[in-house]
């Protein structure tokens, strides 16, 4: 738990945050569309653990969370839903880690509606477990 739930000014609104989604939170892949839904219960916690992808790499996160898929949202998305984003090194000292928590009740579980909003605001950051889209070549 962070020492303070004060909003972290070092994380701009456009900061892209990745959240590992446990396999138990996944729906089966839709055989018709290939899409995969997930339960917003993956966000129903006291502090939603996320990583600023600009400060780490997809490969590093895939190593940290083998076999898991990732959703991407921005810090601004979370702030729109009365949540705060606080930098907090993870249990191995990774400083790209942050937590999302409630502004009105620091340290309390997110409400179901907030979890649902985070889900809707997020998108898959990968193509499947450990499969990441290739970055487009730089424009010359």
């Amino acid at each position: 738990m962070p020492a303070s739930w004060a909003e972290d000014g070092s994380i701009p609104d456009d900061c892209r945050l990745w959240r590992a989604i446990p396999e138990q939170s996944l729906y089966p892949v839709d055989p018709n569309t290939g899409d995969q839904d997930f339960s917003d219960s993956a966000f129903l916690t006291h502090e939603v653990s996320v990583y600023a992808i600009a400060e780490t790499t997809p490969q590093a996160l895939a190593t940290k969370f083998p076999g898991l898929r990732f959703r991407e949202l921005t810090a601004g998305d979370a702030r729109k839903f009365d949540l705060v984003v606080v930098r907090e090194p993870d249990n191995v000292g990774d400083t790209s880690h942050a937590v999302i928590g409630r502004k009105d009740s620091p340290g309390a579980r997110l409400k179901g509606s907030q979890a649902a909003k985070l889900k809707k605001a997020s998108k898959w950051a990968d193509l499947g477990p450990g499969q990441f889209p290739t970055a487009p070549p730089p424009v010359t």
Partner: protein
Amino acid sequence: MMPALDAVTTPIIEYRAAERQPQVRRRQLGQIIVVQSSCQIIVVQSSWEIEPIRAALKLQSLPRGWDRAGSPPPGDAPVDRAIDVISSVAKLGFDDITAPHVFPVPGGGIQLEWLQGDRRLEVEVLPDGSTQFVTLKDGDPLKEGEYPLWPPTEAKSLFSWLVSGA
């Protein structure tokens, strides 16, 4: 003439605590069931209840840290309450309700999700057995609060809203 077998039987779930693997079998209506100390027998009203109840029971076998963040598996209180919720929904009398999807929640809870077109009803059972609900349309939350196990009229209004979107 004897009725067909399916007409006189109803599925039950027999849960053997020692094995943690629920078995489904059928019994005749009116049959007296002897509940042994090692077994929990759950009588269901509708066949759609079997899979979600089975899924809720299986969640107790999750390892600690299943979410990679140290969460425990759901304990007896949320599992029992999730089964209560599923059973109570089956008794509401809707013919067109499908089985909910069952998910563990970080911290030791369980979430049941009923989907109907663009509508969704989510019931979360917290680790202490208390229950919350959220209704969603197109992924946007509409209403949330304490899930009303009693009186059934309140739960019925939630499921009426859900199935009216079919």
